[in-house]
């Protein structure tokens, strides 16, 4: 039994909460000064645990940069109780065997839900559908399919994939990047790329695919999710699609809500990411889109890379940033401190809606008596300074290093158990190194 006293819910009420046997057992009104044994929630906010639909865990294949266990530890440190393992592992998660392996590794780690995402096409090659049915019917119960890292560029393959997943009420999560328009692309195409002589990744390469896939989704009446939207034009297209009732959802990453392409000027590959950092105008449009709900959710695109892949010249460096542990703080900074969103909306974009899109049963539930006890307790008024070397993630390629950010996570509860207490991981997740 876990008790939390005098805690704020996102609707502004102050309550006492009892958790037992994996569920929220009782909620009662608090005087704000109640005093009983348990966790002091005064001044803190209790929300359903965060849910990430876009996480790279690197296992199997690159266990030197992240494993399912270290990724899970990073997730709970960031307040996540469910993450979604992208398919671009080695071997690729394109068979029931691989997704079940990842699912089991997640169960063994045991500190958050690890839901595998299946590849849309065999080997992420974009040529032939992978065994979507087998993955959907496996123990892993896969519903999201994505070739993330690669775009499903062939319009016919994309159409078939959208049609095929309808059997399972699945969803195709598209990495929108026209490969021909982004040949050797290194960064956002614009004023900065012209100056520093790096090959450009134009906004239109993203928007052209978003537009095409929205129309395909409408045509075959399926569900589309756009991964990491980065451009003002992309937000406009999604807004247009939603107005027409097309079943499209979209995500934005924390780094695209805060960082811009002028950071690339010193050629530090810590800022090398795909899709690339864009301009101030795009950042503002993304924030506005997220606030309005046009962009449905925040997703981390947590992409671990070992040191040697960033400690080199720009072109040789890998694309990607780790972000599970800084996601909530960056969203508070960009969306709450700017008064663009309320805490209820933050909870919606980082927990409730992602769980709804993916169909994760015990996640993203409004905190009521009987709801699943996957929860995060955060102190919104405290700040912390990011030290990338102290991250739980095995990789340290975090671009917010040395930044002071708002929001300190004190407790995380998974299936009714404390996995983080007083800001430290409990023994629950330790010792499962198999």
């Amino acid at each position, binding site marked *: 039994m876990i008790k939390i006293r005098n805690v704020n819910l996102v609707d502004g009420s102050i309550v006492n909460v009892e958790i037992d046997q994996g569920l929220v057992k009782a909620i009662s009104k608090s005087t704000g000064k109640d005093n009983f044994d348990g966790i002091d929630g005064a001044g803190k906010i209790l929300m359903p645990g965060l849910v990430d639909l876009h996480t790279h865990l690197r296992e199997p294949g690159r266990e030197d940069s992240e494993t399912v266990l270290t990724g899970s530890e990073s997730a709970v440190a960031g307040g996540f109780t469910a993450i979604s393992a992208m398919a671009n592992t080695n071997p690729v998660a394109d068979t029931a065997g691989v997704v079940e392996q990842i699912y089991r590794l997640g169960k063994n780690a045991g500190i958050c839900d690890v839901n595998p995402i299946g590849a849309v096409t065999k080997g992420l090659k974009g040529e032939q559908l992978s065994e979507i049915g087998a993955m959907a019917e496996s123990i892993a119960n896969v519903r999201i399919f994505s070739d993330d890292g690669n775009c499903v560029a062939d319009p016919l393959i994309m159409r078939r994939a959208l049609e095929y997943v309808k059997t399972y009420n699945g969803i195709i999560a598209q990495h929108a990047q026209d490969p021909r328009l982004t040949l050797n692309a290194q960064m956002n*195409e614009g004023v900065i790329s012209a100056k520093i002589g790096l090959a450009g990744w134009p906004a239109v390469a993203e928007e052209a695919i978003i537009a095409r896939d929205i129309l395909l989704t409408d045509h075959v009446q399926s569900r589309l999710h756009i991964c990491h939207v980065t451009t003002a034009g992309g937000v406009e297209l999604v807004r247009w699609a939603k107005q027409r009732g097309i079943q499209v959802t979209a995500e934005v990453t924390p780094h695209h809500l805060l960082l811009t392409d002028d950071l690339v000027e010193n050629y530090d590959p810590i800022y090398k990411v795909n899709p690339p950092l864009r301009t101030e105008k795009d950042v503002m449009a993304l924030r506005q889109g997220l606030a309005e709900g046009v962009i449905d959710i925040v997703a981390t695109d947590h992409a671990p890379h070992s040191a040697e892949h960033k400690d080199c010249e720009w072109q040789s460096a890998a694309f990607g940033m780790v972000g599970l542990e800084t996601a909530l703080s960056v969203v508070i900074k960009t969306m709450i401190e700017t008064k663009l969103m309320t805490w209820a909306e933050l909870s919606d974009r980082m927990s409730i809606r992602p769980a709804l899109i993916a169909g994760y049963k015990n996640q993203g539930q409004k905190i009521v008596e009987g709801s699943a006890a996957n929860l995060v307790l955060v102190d919104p008024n405290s700040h912390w300074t990011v030290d990338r070397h102290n991250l739980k993630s095995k990789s340290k390629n975090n671009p917010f290093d040395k930044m002071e950010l708002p929001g300190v996570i004190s407790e995380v509860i998974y299936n009714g158990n404390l996995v983080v207490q007083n800001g430290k991981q409990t023994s629950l997740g330790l010792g499962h190194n198999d």
Partner: protein
Amino acid sequence: MKSAHLLSADDLSKQDALELLATAKELAAITDGPNKKLPTLRGKTVVNLFFEDSTRTRISFETAAKRLSADVINFSAKGSSVSKGESLKDTAQTLQAMGADAVVIRHESSGAAKRLADSKWIQATVINAGDGTHEHPTQALLDAFTIKQHLRSKDSDLSGVKVLIVGDILHSRVARSNVILLTKLGAKVVLVAPPTLFPVGVENWPVDISYDLDKEIPKCDVIMMLRIQQERMANSFFPTEREYSRRYGLNSYRLSKLSKSSIVMHPGPMNRGLEISADSADDIKSVIIDQVRNGVAVRMAVLYQLLGGAPIGAAND
């Protein structure tokens, strides 16, 4: 010079650049004499770290360093461990351990020189000898030197000089460095190319842009032709080599339209018959050989200023 390295033409103030050009002129006068060598950098080690083939630039730096009595090590990616996949970091640390005072780096990646200078991998002075499609600052210095030599008096800057740079602006490090340096020195720069060979974002550069070479030719003092790489054609930057040559090549007809006092430049190596016809390259207006000669003097001046050599004209033993 304020900066410890030369990575971009932007590292130089106008004053720095004029001083470097003046130093280069003094050095050129000395090395034109019977004894070409100065003792100023004796005991210093200069490494030419070339990840990309460029015999011309390498021997120019090598000659410059040797004329200042520095020890020169040529480290080329081909035939070294780099081709087996050694990282820039490991190579840099190796050079550091060997006691390099300056590293002249040519690399196919934009920003490689800056990475080397900003990293803690090596303490040496870094000189950018061309990084990807970013910059080639010593080329801009030698171009400015050559323009000044032909068109301007001793102490002046390049105010009022109108320079056309023609060709593959998008991929040209020579163009980027020249735009920065020549405009800083007061020149007016016009870039001429088909629209496919301008970078998106060029509108923020302090230059005019034009798609029409014939319109610009009669109005310039300097025409600088850039090399066209064969692979650009494969990527549809222009339809055919011949169409490019017809529209943007310097031929005898266009040569005849140039003003009387104007000069023709090319950073080399030339594709004769593509961006420049043989008779244009060899015409009396062509100062292409002067550019090569001046490259040595300018690079001597850069090494001299950055490595803090003894004053010029000190005991010449």
